[in-house]
């Protein structure tokens, strides 16, 4: 059984401010392989495509996977077999579908769960958070304390995220690619399909769009600027930076009860360490499979960061974190697994109580906030 006191130094007020992991990565094809960053939609002056800051031909930083995207990859681990006993598994059923609270974008503050029989429980838990006691919330939705939560539809209680992880590439060279769809058969030449008579103008050019193009019956070259992104070469390397905020964790209380506060903090620390030391899949998207770079002296750096800025080497393995969490979860007494039904009537009453506007319009108006 793991020693539940082994990380108590991280819970002391004079302890380190954070743990930071820095992983040096590379494409699975090799350090000179092409990788495909995330693409972003155009709008408001942004042409769309990759997010590359700096000199496109020199020093720059390219976003490969954002904080939110990394969080979406990490949080579902608590539904996996090996980890599921660490947190209560809350399932909301609506019709034939069901969603885990671990997958709900706004976690314990998500509207889908507040419109169930858990509404009062969660409201009470959030009110207790505002009164300085996070124990109840930890019983029902402990990952909300790890990844952050905002009860935007009710009490407005907010807790910050403890974990942030981002993957960036440095000094990238952007590549382009072109392609052409070639149909299996030349439908027109084989006489299978007839082109419309008014398809071409007097000069023989196709007027507007070829009607066969949308259905895949003709050759289609890929030429639009938004479709020719060919990945990047990361000449300066790829790196994942992850942070576990210990100073923020030390701001969780179970009211004035010091013993319960310690149990609460140990439990959340365990969950945080488990998530922090978990390496999310290196497969981010097609064309972007990342692995550790063995050419680096330390492919994985793990440090304690103190308030003075001092960095001291440290290490906590994933297995050690898991064992610790099992022990602290047992001490804390993890909340019960629950499956609840989505309550249409409760949702209707919720909307009516808030002035009768549709929740969609209200949500847009107040911009109720982001998911992880």
């Amino acid at each position, binding site marked *: 059984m793991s020693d539940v006191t082994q990380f108590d130094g991280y819970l002391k007020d004079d302890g380190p401010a954070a743990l930071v992991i820095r992983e040096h990565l590379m494409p699975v094809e090799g350090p000179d392989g092409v990788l495909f960053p995330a693409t972003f939609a155009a709008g408001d002056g942004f042409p769309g495509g990759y997010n590359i800051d700096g000199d496109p031909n020199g020093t720059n930083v390219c976003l490969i996977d954002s904080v939110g995207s990394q969080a979406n990859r990490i949080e579902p681990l608590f539904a996996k077999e090996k980890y599921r006993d660490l947190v209560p598994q809350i399932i909301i059923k609506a019709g034939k579908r069901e969603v885990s609270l671990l997958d709900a974008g706004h976690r314990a503050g998500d509207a889908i769960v507040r419109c169930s029989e858990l509404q009062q429980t969660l409201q009470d838990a959030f009110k207790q958070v505002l009164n300085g006691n996070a124990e109840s919330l930890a019983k029902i939705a402990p990952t909300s304390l790890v990844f952050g939560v905002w009860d935007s539809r009710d009490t407005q209680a907010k807790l910050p995220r403890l974990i942030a992880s981002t993957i960036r590439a440095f000094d990238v060279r952007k590549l382009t690619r072109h392609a052409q769809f070639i149909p299996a058969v030349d439908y027109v030449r084989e006489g299978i399909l007839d082109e419309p008579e008014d398809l071409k103008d007097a000069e023989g050019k196709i007027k507007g769009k070829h009607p066969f193009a949308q259905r895949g019956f003709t050759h289609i070259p890929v030429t639009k600027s938004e479709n020719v992104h060919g990945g990047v070469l990361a000449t300066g390397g790829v790196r994942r930076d992850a942070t576990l905020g210990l100073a923020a964790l030390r701001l969780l209380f179970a009211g004035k009860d010091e013993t319960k506060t310690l149990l609460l903090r140990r439990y959340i620390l365990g969950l945080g360490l488990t998530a922090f030391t978990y390496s999310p899949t290196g497969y981010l998207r097609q064309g972007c499979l990342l692995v550790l770079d063995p050419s680096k002296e330390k492919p994985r750096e793990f440090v304690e960061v103190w*308030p003075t800025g001092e960095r001291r080497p440290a290490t906590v393995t994933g297995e050690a974190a898991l064992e610790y969490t099992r022990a602290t979860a047992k001490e804390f007494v993890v909340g019960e697994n629950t499956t609840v039904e989505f309550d249409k009537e409760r949702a209707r009453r919720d909307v009516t109580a808030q002035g009768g506007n549709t929740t969609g319009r209200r949500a847009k108006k107040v911009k109720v906030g982001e998911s992880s």
Partner: protein
Amino acid sequence: MPAHFCVTVRFLQPLSHGRGDDDEPEWPPSPLRLFQALVAASAARWNERKELRRALPALRWLEMQPPPLIIAAPAERSPVKYRLYVPDNVGDKVGGSWARGGSASIADYRTEKNVRSAHLTSDAVHFLYPIGDDDRVSAEHRQTLSAATRSITHLGWGIDMVAASASVISEDEATGLSGERWQPEVDSANTRRAPLAGTVHALMERHGAFLNRIATDGFRPVPSLSAFRLVGYRRTTEAMTRPFVAFSILRMDTDVFRAFDTVNQSRRVAGMMRGIASSVARSTGWSEEAINTFILGHGESREETKHQPVGPRRFAFLPLPSIEVRGAGKQAVVGSIRRVIVTTFGDGCESQVDWARLAMSNQALTDEGSKEPVAVLSLTGETERAIRNYTRRSSRWATVTPVVLPGYDDPAHYRRRLNDKIDGQEKIRLLTALNDRIDRLLRKAIVQSGFSATLAEHVEIEWRKVGFWPGTDLAGRYRVADYLRRFTRYHVRLRWRDARGGAVDVPGPICLGGGRFCGMGLFAAEE
């Protein structure tokens, strides 16, 4: 001994997402942003999430303090933003659809969120509050704030995780902190929000309003925070924009330019400007002392014989040689003087420059010997190209009149020793020492002209006897006042740089060295 209460915030990832009033990435973070983080940290640290008690007196003390000096890691603002689509908290709509057998998706309910960050070159930003009265109460407040500071976990957006600490540091320790220095400055247009008396109370009220914004009778908008002030900040690598007024020099009773030879008559033009300024000032009620100091640059009384310098708070009369495009190759060439600028190198002299604009326009320049009028001053626009050659922002400048070094460049007579029979190594040593000496004198001249020590330290300097601008003469041929003759003159080129070697655009007019108040050492922008 002067000291500072220093709050240091270290970003755990090299990015900051906080936005300023212009919706642009804000760097460095404003004092108000830090204050708000301290308020939140205090509430969380002592578990007073609805109403502050423990740290309230200390926060009230802090909001009354003068705005801090900010020392921040240099940062590059991202030039473009990227757009995320974050799901709205309307899972009930999706659940309702599913409960009815529908197939709605949360992906159908998303809000656009634009992200634009500042990339940090290092992790730290320091806020230095001057310690005035070091009484017991203030010391207790600093102790409380130091404890609260350790609980600051974010500064900016929720993804900007930080570690923070606070302590009292000495002036020497403050000098040793690395980063760009941002000084509070009244006249700077680059402002930051800062707290004032009542800010913490307003924040508490706003928090209460936020917690109650969704009520049974509907949504109650939360009023924006208004209890703050705007404080101007300027980086020490940024030169101040000097106020100036420009005049064309015209022939009497015509609108044709009256030209003066730059090499031989620049000093004469400055002298005539000084004369007419004195005369007009006397007739408009200036005191003799003010005329003596601000216009003539004499700190000594008429009875004293030894000259007493008055520092930068005085007029500088800068005759401007025209920079003309000549020849088939359209080369810019320095020509004769046809315009003049009146400016100062000191702070807070805007009213005097405004006086010159009104009082000296249409005045006649009088020859100091014959007392006859030789030209008339005509107010000219500041945006005129001939003026902007000397006043626009540029990182590269070169002299149109040489810089008179502010000291002897060869007190140990190294040049004499170079004529002796010495070996190559000794020759190199002597030349290096000479160059180092000249370099130091030129950087000294830069600081004497009102530029920051930071700018003076990092500027790249070239010097030689031959001018960098076509049309200039050898440095030694320019006529100077008798008391300046014993100092060596050089033509100089400056490339302004910051600590990282990045180009810094500096506004003119720039005038360095001895005789700078009369137009010696005048620079024109090369870019």
